[in-house]
């Protein structure tokens, strides 16, 4: 099978700091891949390079067989790479409905049907449990709900690759269970790249895990392999299992 996403020797410097340092990475269609690693390891930078929010210093990114290294972000989104922000970034003054309508109308090609937008929006809100808050301005949602809205917006883009940057941050434990269900469902139609610090979530969801450290890939493998990896324990998990 051909990988959906490949990066070759991808690197990004900030001044003297090599935040991402020559990463070779492959992602197969349909998998749920978790990326973990210490704070500051370069995970967000890495996915930002993939989504096109920032430009690489060197290296190459191939998506679905095509070199997208120099494409602007919006074109990558149109090809199916969706990104939800680690630091919440919703349209604070627009209603939750409008927040989701934006990605929905982007994906609709027939142009006309208002009904299609509405159905699409409500479906996405439904799935994230925000349907009854559709008309609240996003800025007035609690932090946790804003996180869910982020996911709803990502969902609504009907992506082929959905990148979730710490989606459970700020979610109550009670909501996390629902969230895991949601991700599983999304995974049926999309490939997922998930950055997470919440190990139980990672362990439950991921098919494979990639561990970053200091801008490089430290290890890669199934959850069991990673859990057993002593290097990973030292660098990341600390004493806690």
């Amino acid at each position: 099978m051909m990988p959906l996403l490949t990066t070759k020797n991808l690197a990004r410097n900030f001044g003297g700091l090599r935040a991402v340092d020559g990463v070779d990475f492959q992602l197969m269609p349909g998998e749920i891949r978790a990326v973990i690693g210490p704070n500051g390891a370069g995970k967000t930078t890495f996915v930002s390079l993939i989504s096109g929010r920032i430009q690489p210093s060197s290296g190459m990114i191939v998506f679905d067989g095509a070199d997208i290294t120099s494409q602007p972000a919006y074109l990558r989104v149109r090809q199916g790479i969706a990104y939800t922000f680690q630091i919440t970034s919703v349209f604070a003054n627009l209603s939750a409905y409008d927040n989701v309508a934006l990605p929905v109308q982007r994906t609709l090609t027939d142009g006309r049907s208002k009904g299609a937008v509405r159905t699409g929006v409500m479906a996405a809100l439904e799935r994230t449990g925000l349907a009854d808050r559709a008309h609240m301005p996003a800025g007035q949602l609690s932090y946790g709900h804003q996180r869910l809205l982020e996911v709803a917006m990502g969902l609504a883009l009907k992506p082929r690759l959905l990148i979730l940057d710490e989606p459970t941050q700020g979610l109550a434990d009670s909501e996390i269970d629902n969230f895991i269900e949601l991700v599983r469902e999304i995974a049926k139609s999309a490939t997922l790249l998930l950055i997470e610090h919440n190990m139980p979530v990672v362990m439950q969801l991921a098919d494979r895990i990639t561990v970053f450290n200091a801008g490089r890939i430290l290890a890669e493998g199934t959850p069991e392999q990673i859990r057993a990896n002593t290097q990973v324990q030292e660098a990341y998990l600390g004493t806690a299992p």
Partner: protein
Amino acid sequence: MSEASPAKAYALHLGVIALLFALSFVLPDYHHGLLARIMVLAVFAMGYNMLFGYVGLLSLGHAMFFAAGLYGAGLAVIHLGWNVPLAFLAGIACGALLALVIGLLALRTTGVAFMIVTMMFAQVFYLVILYFAAWTGGDQGLVVPQPARVLSFGATSLDLTNPTVRYMSALALFSIVLLITLAIVRSRYGRVLVAVRENEERTKMLGYDTFSNKLIAVVVSGTICAASGAAYALLFGYVGSSFASVQYSILPLLWVLLGGAATTLGGLIGTVFMYYVIDIASGYTSAYLLIVGIALILLVLFFPKGILGTIRQRWLGWLP
């Protein structure tokens, strides 16, 4: 913005247009003439609002688009002897072209830098008008001859210097632009514009080419302002550089803020307010600027989002 109550919104706008039409028959001469002028300038405000209110781009250079329409139309009549419709189109075309060029350059910047860059381009435009005084009349400006300001269709002709014709022409332009604005605002494109205003980075990450969207908005906005300028030249018969000066860039901003940014009718309300405050205050005292200043401050204290903006926020959430 949302899908709710389109009927109400359209009814309101058609109502406003009908009211303005009816006013034509009851207003005393002076207010009749003043309102014609206000409607033309309200179009300027609406064009400005398109960019400032909905896309969140604060330009301090929109006088150049107004002036492009003003001179485009005026000079076409004066130097080329074009007829009114052609001259009007020439004015609009000048504005659109200018807006395209300015947009391509200025949109490389955002926020305050955009504000300053547009102001400086407008200053250049103003100086260019002065520099080519031989054609533009420099700071004194030029008069569009009265006989040329006649719109003729075969046998019938409409004299734009006639108050009723002038009022109705202004109303027609105003109505068309108002309805276009409403349609844009309620469209999906309108939603994208607002999204750019609220969070451009995020909009990009939803797959929108924000630069092109903004560029289109600059051109639409510039074209509407140019239409206002062209109408001003043809209806009121004077083209002059003061309309390209920085005051005329600040005025539409003020009108829009008074009426309510990102409200379709805010431009009209703000323009009417400002005109009548000055008109009434200057009737009472020669120090009327003092009153105008106080009125502005009081208004903004009680209506911090402009008249319609605050009304929408407090009472009528459905206002477009």
